[in-house]
């Protein structure tokens, strides 16, 4: 029941907002719908925590400890982003960057995007997973081009074509997976693409086909994760779309894509009895970390800077999942959580800062601390958190990943450390003058409402200092699930 509520709320919200999205109260409705989704997600979580995995709708949907935590996270960030988007989009409207009628598209697509991500997370059917990942792309293409500037159109086109082609590879991978599964499970009954069934028989699936399938699935979903060398769409889409969309793309969509990769990896590893999937994950993860860290230096646009930082963190997570084992998986899950919270918080502050400065170029943004202490401190704290400074949660997860890497993949540790150092210097060197630099602009008359930013950062801080036992159990259960016992 809660499950039905969880999936139907954003869909109904999308329909309602498709009709009333241009009204004055549409942004409130958007928040309301997101709130109901979040409550449903919380209810679902308690249900799963209390009574174990849950199958619904003829086994087409499946919730276990791995995806339920991502569902909650998605619903939570969706809620805070909708809260942030309300004043942000109003200002954009008064600046004349978006026409009120376009807000209808914006609100409706926002909810549709949430719906597709929730379906992708909860579906048990690998085919439906593909369908909803593609739908997630489609629902955000028009959001990236919301401002209709040449640059945003270009970003949207790149996003569509690269992700479309990438995800077509994933479809081929899915077909191959079905091809292998059908021999074991049979085509009748339509269970051959259900993850739970596949997981039960993964040892009997044809290894050659599954190996090939994994390559295609990895390329496909990896494009959506933003792994190098198919990361080109990501900075453009993040920089040119409205900031709330950058926040959900970075904080949520990338997580969902990683989730898809990990689900595939679990199956293939069980069939292959070899290290191939792990090695692919580690290799491309590391490549993304290194490439992103160096590309960070060339950025002048603040949103592109943090988009590259997302690529870097996705690389770290992919690398950690590649190493496998309970500790690395635990750390990767923790990193997914803290990255998602921190990065969306950063985008919230960046959005406000760019809006005040009237530019996304970093050299135009100066002295945030005098303009508005909340924005200044928010950006500073967020950047320190994302760079892995000690009290924050990112430090905890990166520390775990690095120590595991030292033990299991010693060759990778210096590379990772160097890349993290380079990224630190690049981001900190740019954020510092933006926050503390001299400015001639006047202090803002009203402090902006940045409740979502500090809520996110507070959770990240808490996760760095103390992971509550139920949450730790939950992560451990999920890590075990991925680790294949």
């Amino acid at each position, binding site marked *: 029941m809660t499950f039905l509520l969880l999936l139907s709320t954003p869909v109904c919200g999308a329909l309602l907002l498709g009709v009333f999205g241009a009204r004055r109260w549409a942004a409130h409705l958007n928040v309301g719908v997101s709130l109901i989704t979040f409550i449903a997600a919380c209810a679902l979580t308690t249900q799963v925590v209390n009574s174990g995995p849950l199958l619904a709708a003829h086994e*087409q949907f499946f919730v276990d400890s791995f995806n339920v935590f991502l569902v909650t996270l998605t619903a939570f960030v969706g809620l805070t982003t909708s809260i942030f988007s309300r004043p942000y989009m109003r200002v954009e409207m008064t600046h004349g960057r978006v026409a009120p009628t376009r807000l209808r598209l914006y609100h409706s697509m926002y909810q549709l995007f949430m719906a597709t991500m929730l379906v992708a997370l909860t579906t048990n*059917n690998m*085919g*439906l997973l*593909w*369908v*909803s990942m*593609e*739908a997630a792309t*489609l629902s955000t*293409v*028009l959001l990236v*081009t919301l401002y*209709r*500037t*040449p*640059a945003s*159109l*270009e*970003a*949207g*086109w*790149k996003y*569509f*074509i690269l992700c*479309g*082609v990438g995800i*077509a590879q994933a*479809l*081929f991978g*899915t*077909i*191959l997976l*079905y*091809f292998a599964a*059908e*021999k074991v499970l049979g*085509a009748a009954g*339509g269970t*051959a*693409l259900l993850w739970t069934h596949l997981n039960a028989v993964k040892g009997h699936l*044809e290894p*050659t*086909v599954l190996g*090939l399938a994994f390559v295609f699935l990895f390329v496909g979903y990896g494009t959506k994760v933003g792994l190098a060398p198919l990361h080109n769409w990501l900075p*453009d889409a993040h920089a*040119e779309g409205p900031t709330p969309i950058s926040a959900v793309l970075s904080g949520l969509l990338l997580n969902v894509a990683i989730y898809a990769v990990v689900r595939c990896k679990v199956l293939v590893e069980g069939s292959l009895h070899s290290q191939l999937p792990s090695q692919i994950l580690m290799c491309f993860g590391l490549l993304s970390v290194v490439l992103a860290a160096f*590309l960070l230096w*060339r950025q*002048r*646009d603040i949103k592109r800077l943090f988009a590259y930082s997302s690529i870097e963190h996705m690389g770290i997570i992919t690398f950690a999942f590649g190493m496998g084992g309970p500790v690395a998986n635990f750390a990767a899950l923790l990193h997914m959580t803290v990255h998602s919270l921190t990065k969306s918080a950063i985008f919230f502050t960046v959005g406000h800062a760019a809006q005040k400065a*009237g*530019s*996304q*170029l970093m050299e*135009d943004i100066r002295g945030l601390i005098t303009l508005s202490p909340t924005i200044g401190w928010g950006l500073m704290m967020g950047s320190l958190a994302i760079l892995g400074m000690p009290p924050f949660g990112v430090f905890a997860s990166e520390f775990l990943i690095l120590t595991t890497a030292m033990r299991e993949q010693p060759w990778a540790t210096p590379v990772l450390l160097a890349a993290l150092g380079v990224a630190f210097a690049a981001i900190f060197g740019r954020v510092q003058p933006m926050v503390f630099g001299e400015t001639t602009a006047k202090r803002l008359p009203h402090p902006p409402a940045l409740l979502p930013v500090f809520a996110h950062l507070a959770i990240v801080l808490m996760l760095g200092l103390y992971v509550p036992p139920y949450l730790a159990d939950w992560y451990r259960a999920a890590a075990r699930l991925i680790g294949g016992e």
Partner: protein
Amino acid sequence: MTGTPLDLQLLNLCAALLLLLSFAMLAQRRVVTLVSLLAIQGVLLFVATLLLAWRTGERHLYLSAALTLALKVLLLPWLLHRLIRRLQVYWDTEPLLNISGTMLVGLLVVIFAFGLAQPIAALASTATRSAIGIAVAVILLSFVTMITRRKAMSQVVGFLSMENGLFFGAMSATYGMPMIVEFGVALDVLVAVLVLGVFFFQIREQFDSLDLHHLESLKESSTSSKTTPPVSAQSGQEH
């Protein structure tokens, strides 16, 4: 083979024609013809699915044949033709690689595709397993089409043809995916074309052309200032 039944021969003929069509697409520069080729590809897929449905007696294949007919033969080409008329894009500009060069690349791609498909085909138990290589070739050739074209419209036709190749691959390897997945994929394709329709009008409004070389400013070292309001339509490139 002397003992090959007629329906299987016809199926193989369809597969061969699909491959031929992919090459025709690779060479074709008229956008309208490109869309017609896509429609013919849809017809072939429809015929192949029907034949396969008749041969295997699988009921869901009839349904997916009907879906192919509705979506790929009628709806999508109609939508694309309408778009072409409204946007008045009839010709693609000179491709990045000349036609004969593209053809050579295409040949290599086909060889690679058959190599890739071999292990899969060896394991397949379907009657149409010999067509798997062709399906992979169609996918990769569409990919080449997308890479070598400049006009947004031709790239989209390439994208849709890739989807057709995937569909054909699924059909020849496993007699089609579960129905729910096929419906989902069809829905996605339809939505993609609708989104692109909207998108094309936006590009046109902004650049006065659907030539993709306008969309090449977002480079890594891009220094274009985001502060200036968008300068509409760089120059009146004819389409």
